[in-house]
């Protein structure tokens, strides 16, 4: 069998081998049961003590959200000022300039929101101080925020009726000490010993074999690349992210990075089932998500391995597949696998340039981000999926003419309203955002911004539209990858995507947590013959249908204008 395909299969199997036990472990950690990492307790207690936190203090869902939002706002303020003044602060060996306010606005929201859309280039846009004290710091804490929010949801369904949902700070700190930090240490060491720079040395210069003078950007990259994947952040140290040979030196590190970005999202699903003592539910959710993954992955691999039809017409060999924007050491199959997982999960790191992938691959990448719940980001993937579940419960309830219930709690008008708002939010932001951008591009081509609108697009025609659609979709999904040809560092894109990222992050956290909090507090109704069971194959199918119908209805027209139109012109 083709070694490129065996490579992907091995990667996926290894992911499961790690993620499933990790999920069981997480369920225990957050339930406060005994686990082998309990030796870290003194560290945690130290952190609580220094921060003046009493973890015995119980919070209801509103207090949980208050704590979550308070600390997130604090990070926004802190990061914004460091980014603006980075040129005046220490640890800037390459002498990079401070950020403009609009770029700092965009960057800080992007990193607080676990999105990591980057309108700067790592080599020239940030200092070592910012890379570590702002960006990498936020990669840890934004992932932990998502995980902690998901645990609040777990708590709401563990007991029959619950109003006290544990302590937010405890979930948050444990997500770092018991999960993100230990795994990051292991992964950073693997990367370092495979050639990724980890030291604080500045730029190097050498004379190449043919006599060219070459400057080399370096720096403490391994530390950041580890957490950028584990935390499904995706913001790379260097401009081209994990396509850079320093960020991703060989096929082995490519496997490691692919595995790292998927294990926590899968583990959270497993942890949910074990935590609320409904293991079958976890496997049902996992099944739907995995089928979703393969439905996007298989056509993407086939279109990338098939090569570019336009190049085939020129008469060259297509045995190596489509290679524009890809690296030889990974090949098209592993690049397609990466493009799939990085878009269904909200990582958004890339090991090939998505702008140059085949048009149908672009469709699958966009669809993955639009759905945003096949595994999904750290913690938030499950929250997104929960909204689909509630909608599915509601529709099933209507079909059989009973008051919908979820896990023994009546789902009533208030919860459905919240779920409906969150569901409508994504298409609204994606479609309205793209429409505004297209309008500005067409009518205000000469606006005096850092990049004039008429110069935004790197590609003409349908593909140009896809570049704008992709940017907005990626922002809303908190994904952070891009069709990087887009000239996006100007006040329009910085502000537009900044606002979209912010709303696309916090509303989909507040909504599900509120629904869970409201449901959990309701009286428990014991199961009867008429109860809708969410862990059956029928209901799984129902959820899948809801996901498909909602997204197809919302996005098909936009996809038809962009990648689909390009596809049909290309094969003509």
């Amino acid at each position, binding site marked *: 069998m083709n070694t490129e395909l065996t490579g992907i299969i091995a990667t996926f199997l290894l992911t499961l081998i790690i993620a499933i036990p990790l999920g069981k472990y997480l369920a225990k950690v957050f339930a406060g049961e005994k686990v082998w990492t309990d030796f870290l307790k003194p560290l945690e207690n130290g952190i609580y003590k220094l*921060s003046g936190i009493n973890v015995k203090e119980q919070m209801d869902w509103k207090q949980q959200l208050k704590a979550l939002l308070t600390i997130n706002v604090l990070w926004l303020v802190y990061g914004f000022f460091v980014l603006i003044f980075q040129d005046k602060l220490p640890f800037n060996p390459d002498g990079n300039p401070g950020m403009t306010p609009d770029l700092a606005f965009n960057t800080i929201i992007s990193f607080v929101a676990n999105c990591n859309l980057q309108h700067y280039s790592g080599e020239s846009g940030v200092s070592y101080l910012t890379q570590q004290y702002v960006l990498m710091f936020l990669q840890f804490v934004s992932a932990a925020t998502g995980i902690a929010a998901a645990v609040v949801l777990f708590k709401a369904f563990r007991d029959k009726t619950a109003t006290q949902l544990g302590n937010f700070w405890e979930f948050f700190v444990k997500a770092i000490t018991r999960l993100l930090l230990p795994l990051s240490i292991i992964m950073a060491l693997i990367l370092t010993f495979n050639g990724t720079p980890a030291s604080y040395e500045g730029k190097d210069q050498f004379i190449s074999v043919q006599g060219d003078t070459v400057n080399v950007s370096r720096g403490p990259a391994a530390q950041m690349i580890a957490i950028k994947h584990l935390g499904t952040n995706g913001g790379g140290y260097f401009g081209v992210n994990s396509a850079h040979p320093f960020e991703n030196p060989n096929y082995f590190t490519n496997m490691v990075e692919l595995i790292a970005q998927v294990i926590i999202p899968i583990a959270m699903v497993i942890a949910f089932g074990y935590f609320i003592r409904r293991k079958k539910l976890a496997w049902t959710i996992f099944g739907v998500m995995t089928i979703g993954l393969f439905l996007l992955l298989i056509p993407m691999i086939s279109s990338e391995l098939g090569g570019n039809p336009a190049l085939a017409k020129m008469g060259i060999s297509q045995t190596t597949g489509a290679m524009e*924007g890809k690296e030889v050491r990974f090949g098209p199959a592993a690049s397609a696998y990466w493009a799939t997982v990085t878009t269904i999960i909200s990582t958004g790191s890339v090991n090939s340039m998505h702008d140059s992938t085949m048009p149908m691959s672009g469709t699958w990448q966009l669809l993955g981000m639009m759905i945003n719940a096949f595994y999904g980001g750290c913690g938030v993937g499950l929250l997104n999926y929960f909204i689909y579940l509630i909608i599915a419960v509601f529709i099933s309830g209507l079909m059989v003419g009973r008051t919908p219930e979820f896990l023994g709690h009546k789902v009533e008008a208030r919860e459905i309203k919240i779920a409906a708002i969150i569901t409508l939010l994504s298409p609204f932001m994606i479609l309205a955002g793209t429409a505004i951008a297209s309008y500005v591009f067409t009518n205000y081509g000469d606006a005096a911004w850092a990049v004039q609108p008429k110069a935004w697009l790197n590609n003409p025609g349908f593909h140009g539209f896809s570049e704008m659609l992709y940017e907005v979709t990626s922002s809303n999904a908190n994904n952070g990858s891009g069709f990087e040809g887009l000239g996006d560092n100007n006040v329009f894109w910085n502000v537009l995507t900044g606002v979209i990222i912010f709303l696309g992050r916090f509303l989909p956290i507040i909504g599900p947590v509120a629904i869970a909090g409201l449901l959990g507090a309701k009286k428990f109704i014991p199961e009867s013959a008429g109860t809708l069971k969410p862990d059956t194959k029928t209901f799984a199918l129902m959820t899948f249908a809801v996901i498909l119908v909602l997204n197809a209805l919302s996005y098909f027209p936009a996809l038809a204008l962009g990648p689909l139109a390009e596809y049909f012109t290309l094969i003509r």
Partner: protein
Amino acid sequence: MKKYIIQSIRLTLVLIVLLCIIYPISIALAGKLSKGNGGGEKITKNGKTVGYELLGQSFTKPEYFWGRPSAVGYNAAGSAGSNKGPSNPDHLKDVQSRIDTLLKYNPGLEKSQIPADMVTASGSGLDPNISEEGAAIQIARVAKARKISEQKVKEMVAMNTLKPLFGLFGPSSVNVLKLNLALDNL
């Protein structure tokens, strides 16, 4: 509310010490034990650094194997791909001119032998590798320019080819810089 603000500030400070000082510095110290001392593995020739093992560099002379086209001219301080879409006319023009260049400098080469990686820009602009097919089509040219047998060059290519991981996973690739230095050392 005020309580949460104070707790947030204190927790943030404590975590900065843990995550931004202790964690990265320990990794940097451990990195000193790695081959490149954690600063990237360098390749030296006659005591001078001539490149990094992982970073591709520009080769244009006929006696060297050429790497992949780069959208940034192998600028290791500003990595980037072309970001050109598959149907972009500029992209197709670039590819056509790369095909023409290859055909011009490699007499006897058939168009249908050229693999896509030799005429498309890499993702990073720093791809250190080419495919085995990409090396194969250059063997005749390099042998002629160096006045050595094609068999010898073929052996050198084989010696510098990295097989799939454990022979099972991923594509094989040829490191252009190492191959060219090996040829220089003959």
